[in-house]
């Protein structure tokens, strides 16, 4: 039986378009110092470090070793995890598994990226197969645009429905001092922004960002040593089923499932945690929504409503601040996207919400929160966090 695990320290940098004043290890150090301070720890209290980014964005490998000055990992066990867009949530899951195993009591999870250092689309293309993907792949924007086209064809959703999501996320970001974009946009602004890849417009997409995030994961055996209220991991999962960048569009043709990797990973976690009605049971969600249409389709894949039901529920305000389950009070990925940090920030924001420390973006009385990561050719990490200690550790 695994140990039960809590988040006991949170740190993050302000997310910015570029941080030429720091290199990678210095950026990492800003988030780590804040997390250690929050946890009332010093560097020597860390048992192990789990760190991640995507090497091809900076063109520099082996962050696990060269970050030791900044990460606090000097002469400690360090493991690097890189899984694409999900890197930050995978780092959180890796730290969770470390502590749940019983081998480590206090593990530092770090996610970071300096997306200002390269062209994001070009770098993303190099992640994929040189024969079958790269010659014709046009990165995340075009890949997501094809999802949006198929989604609108399969449902009654419109570009305006997606624009509502983009506006909501930007509005939420105004309450978050850590967010990269602080812009008050209207649906007309989004609709009037130029097409990047039809039907996806500039206003629908995430920015590229420099930033870092660090979290302390602690075992139930030592959790009382920390000053902050522990935030308990209730369950985690990830699922993969596609081999090539073209594969994810198959489910639009076969109609068998609706973003099956996200659907399956969330269903598996929900079953273990006892979630039968996500919309009723979650008090807040911090989701990796890289573009506006994700805020529609992924709500359906995550079981918040039936297939095609998200536009109506969204426009009724269910996911706004004050709604049934506010989504991305932080402003989400459409307001800040330092890719290797982004998933971990989703987890960090859930932790702050549960602790009641989310400032202007606080949702009242949060007991249960959902965090997701989204990656590559449509896979997903899903984490459920809560105020109460779970009955037992769950995978």
């Amino acid at each position: 039986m695994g140990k039960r695990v809590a988040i006991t320290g949170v740190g993050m940098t302000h997310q910015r378009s570029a941080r030429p004043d720091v290199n990678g290890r210095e950026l990492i150090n800003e988030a780590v110092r804040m997390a250690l301070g929050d946890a009332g720890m010093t560097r020597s209290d860390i048992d192990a470090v789990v760190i991640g980014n995507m090497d091809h964005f900076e063109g520099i490998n082996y962050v696990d070793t060269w970050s030791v000055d900044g990460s606090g990992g000097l002469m400690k066990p360090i493991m690097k995890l890189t899984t694409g867009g999900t890197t930050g949530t995978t780092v959180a899951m890796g730290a969770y598994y470390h502590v749940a195993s019983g081998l480590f009591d206090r593990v530092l999870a770090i996610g970071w990226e300096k997306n200002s250092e390269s062209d994001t689309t070009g770098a993303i293309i190099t992640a994929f197969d040189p024969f079958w993907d790269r010659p014709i792949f046009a990165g995340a924007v075009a890949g997501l645009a094809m999802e949006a086209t198929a989604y609108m064809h399969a449902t009654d959703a419109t570009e305006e429905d997606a624009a509502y999501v983009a506006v909501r996320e930007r509005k939420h970001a105004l309450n978050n001092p850590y967010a990269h974009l602080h812009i008050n946009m209207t649906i007309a602004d989004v609709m009037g922004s130029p097409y990047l890849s039809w039907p996806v417009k500039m206003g629908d997409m995430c920015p590229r960002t420099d930033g870092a995030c660090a979290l302390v994961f602690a075992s139930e055996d030592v959790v009382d040593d920390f000053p902050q209220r522990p935030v308990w991991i209730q369950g985690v999962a990830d699922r993969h089923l596609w081999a090539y960048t073209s594969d994810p569009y198959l489910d639009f043709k076969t109609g068998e499932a609706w973003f099956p990797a996200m659907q399956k990973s969330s269903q598996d976690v929900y079953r273990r945690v006892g979630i039968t009605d996500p919309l009723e049971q979650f008090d807040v969600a911090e989701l990796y929504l890289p573009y506006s249409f994700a805020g529609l389709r992924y709500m359906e894949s995550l079981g918040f409503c039936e297939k095609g039901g998200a536009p109506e529920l969204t426009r009724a305000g269910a996911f706004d601040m004050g709604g049934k389950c506010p989504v991305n009070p932080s402003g989400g990925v459409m307001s800040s996207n330092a890719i290797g940090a982004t998933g971990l920030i989703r987890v960090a924001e859930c932790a702050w919400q549960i602790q009641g420390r989310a400032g202007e973006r606080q949702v009242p009385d949060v007991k249960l929160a959902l965090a997701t990561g989204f990656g590559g050719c449509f896979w997903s990490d899903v984490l459920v966090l809560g105020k109460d200690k779970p009955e037992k550790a769950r995978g």
Partner: protein
Amino acid sequence: MSEEKKDLITLESGEMAQPFRWTAGAYGSKFLTELRDNKKFVGVKCPKCGKVYVPPRRVCGPCYVELTELVPVSGEGEVVTYTVVSFGFVDPATGTQKPVPYGYAAIMLDGSDTVLLHFIDETDPEKITIGARVKAVFEEERTGSLLDIKHFELIRG
């Protein structure tokens, strides 16, 4: 702040080159040589579920069985989804920017159960539909690459 920023040094990677030599494997090579030499498409059929993969793969993931039966598939098919790319980006393989806008689609060839991503010869999204019929158009000079297909042409009217 701007005074400070002036003093921050950056380094441009410039004209970097780091060549790789990848292998397509026997099945991938078969697919590419058929394209190059005969302007034909070849897939592989799963003996268990009957699904035809294009390009051919060695293993059917869901059935987890080895695939051995290579089958011909059509150069015509239908659009499963599409977009029109209008943002320019530098292709890391060539260091150049493909002119925008261009049509881009997931295409299911007749006889295939998977989709292929490729360009289509239409840049007005209003003129493309899901389910539209398309046909492969080949380059004159072919090298054994997915780009031996110039694009897919919408079968109009």
